[in-house]
């Protein structure tokens, strides 16, 4: 089912509600407009554990398999075990309701282009992720009736915790305000390993007022390589940076490595534009790049032009 069909469905439901409700009273500020059912339907996307908010439509585990391999596996791993990005194991070990999985994928995934899947696609990929997590069988079909009924293995272990749900909630850990001779013995029981800070953070003294900024004569920052304007902005804008960095491999190859690989290849630019557009694997490994349908031809040409001017890796 398409997004507009979903909206029409929700719209009909809301029209009924409004018709039945009490007449609107005047607000004293006369600010803000009454929201129309169409406006509400477009934004009212949340799904509750009882299934409220689930749209019409459906999707099977096998349909979800195709979507997942094309649009999710590059980050979350073929089996949800993680490829660079977080594993989807929490579905089995932390999640209480399958409806929440639908809600989240629908609003926030795939990470580079959220809210791009149709209701059928979200149902399908939700079914597939549930199957990957051994929660539903391979012939499961997700829809607004079946999803709320899925029994999540972790359901009964998630418990609202009253201690922190209000300001007067009872604290679970209590210290005392002892003032004198409170500990018999004080020993340092844990600290950072030697060399840890230097290796990971560099010269930490730069994090304090002083040092380089106070020292007018500190060596100048090495200047960045000259770049064709726009490339960097475009890879941000089109979300390429979630999988690619200039200098290092993330999910996809470093753009510098790409530049090196095709430096002497005259046909490379057209070929790369096609590859980005259609997606695919094989040039750098088995993990596929999803098709990048959203950037315009002009933007892709600019990105590839910029990319091929990047200095090599040395």
């Amino acid at each position, binding site marked *: 089912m398409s997004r507009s069909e979903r909206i029409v469905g929700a719209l009909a439901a809301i029209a009924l509600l409004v018709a039945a409700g009490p007449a609107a009273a005047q607000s004293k500020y006369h600010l803000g407009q009454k929201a129309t059912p169409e406006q509400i339907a477009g934004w009212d996307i949340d799904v509750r554990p009882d299934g409220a908010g689930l749209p019409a439509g459906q999707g099977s585990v096998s349909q979800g398999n195709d979507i997942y391999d094309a649009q999710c596996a590059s980050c979350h791993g073929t089996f949800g075990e993680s490829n660079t990005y977080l594993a989807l194991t929490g579905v089995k070990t932390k*999640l209480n309701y399958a409806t929440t999985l639908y809600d989240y994928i629908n609003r926030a995934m795939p990470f580079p282009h959220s809210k791009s899947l149709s209701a059928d696609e979200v149902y399908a990929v939700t079914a597939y992720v549930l199957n990957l997590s051994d929660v539903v069988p391979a012939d499961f079909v997700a829809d607004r009736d079946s999803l709320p009924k899925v029994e999540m293995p972790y359901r009964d272990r*998630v418990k609202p915790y009253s201690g922190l749900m209000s300001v007067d909630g009872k604290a679970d850990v209590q210290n005392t305000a002892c003032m004198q001779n409170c500990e018999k013995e004080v020993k340092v029981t844990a600290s950072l390993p030697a060399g840890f800070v230097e290796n990971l953070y560099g010269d930490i003294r730069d994090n304090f007022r002083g040092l380089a900024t106070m020292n007018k004569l500190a060596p100048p920052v090495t200047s960045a390589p000259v770049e064709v304007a726009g490339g960097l902005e475009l890879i941000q804008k089109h979300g390429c940076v979630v999988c690619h960095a200039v200098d290092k491999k993330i999910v996809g190859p470093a753009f510098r490595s790409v530049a090196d690989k095709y430096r002497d290849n005259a046909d490379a630019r057209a070929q790369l534009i096609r590859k980005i557009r259609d997606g695919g694997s094989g040039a750098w490994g088995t993990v596929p790049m999803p098709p990048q349908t959203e950037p315009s031809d002009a933007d892709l040409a600019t990105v590839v032009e910029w990319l091929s001017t990047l200095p090599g890796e040395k």
Partner: protein
Amino acid sequence: MDQQDPKRGRVLPAPENFLDPAGKSRRRALGGLLTGGAALLAANSLRAAEVPAGTPAPTRFPPGVPPWSQTLGKPVGANPYGVPATFEGNIIRRSSPGLTTTTQSSVAFTPLQNLFGIITPNGLHFERNHNGRPDIDPYQHRLLLHGLVREPKLYTMEDLLRLPSVSRIHFVECGANSAMEWANPSVPTVQYTHGMLGCSEWTGVLLSTLLEDAGFDEKKAKYLLAEGADAAGLTRTIPIGFALDDVIVAYGQNGEMLRPEQGYPLRLLVPGVQGISNVKWLRRIKVGDQPFNTREETLQYSDLMPDGSSRQYTWIQEAKSVITSPSGGQQLLDKGGYFEITGLAWSGRGHIKRVDISTDGGKNWRAAKLQTPVLEKALTRFRADWTWDGSPALLQSRCIDSTGYVQPKMRQLREVRGTASIYHNNAIQTWLVDAEGKVHNVEV
């Protein structure tokens, strides 16, 4: 160079130790020597012996007259929107190396070690986003308020700016602040241990004003859903009790419009509650009768307990304090010197009643001075005098809030919650000052 005064409690790195033409190499030489042991001696001899040839005489100090006293300054309005002095360029939000896979779902921490008072400058308030930071056109931004209301409403930013407003000072602390420290110390400075924390004067419309304006169903309304307009469409459940008490639909931060990193043009401000409930780029509030069980209340932001269960809806941020100076990564130079111990305390349950300081790892405590104002659900600045005798010291602060709750020790928290619960680590922080004056993150 100026005379050494043993009574001055100087902290390294202080600017005067690094104003040197040799730049970085000089700093390394100094650092190397200092680790050698006789820190004070080394620093003194450096000052005398290591000043390279050709160094201009320090005419900027008395009796000399510095150039800025003799040259006409920059025109008024040279920086129509002011920026910090260039010398403050190191005082920035920083990400912890290796913490996250992508800069789009990540966090940059507030440099608490360098800040004064209780207000976080807007450009330094920590940043935590889930699917990147959107740039929202305020003219095309709308807030939808619907669900169990008489009249569902759509507000423009102008509508919201015209409604009755409030300005209040409150902290915002990420639920995962100090999360990296549950098992053992793992980061070097207070920026990383406690820097998912900020405090601002927020301005906006009380959520209760909007709920009344839309005529919410007072009998049925129990929980609200707040939703962001970012790519995450981030959602959290807000109980109606909070909503009617002090929740603000905020557009102002310290006198100006919100910064994009803080939710421009509109965010929710839920005082005292986990940062993530303070939904940024707010686009929708739905009034409902049951909690919404969102991803940020199940897969994430629920606290795993030792028995394998998880605590859901752990909203309130409990009382917590930390010494921001001296703190990890600093170095005290002067044995026998005076140092002011200063830091921050806060509670999501009310205000701070008392802060105690220990310099012996929690054996003995004394009360610190609280700087006014001491506000509800806001940062409170505390101070205590201290003369460092040159021997190793273990600095701690412990706060007590208006409910009488005493900030716990790390081991007390672990006894109840184990080490896998990620969120709500409000343990007493220990800084070790070693014999060289270097300050380290440790646990006792």
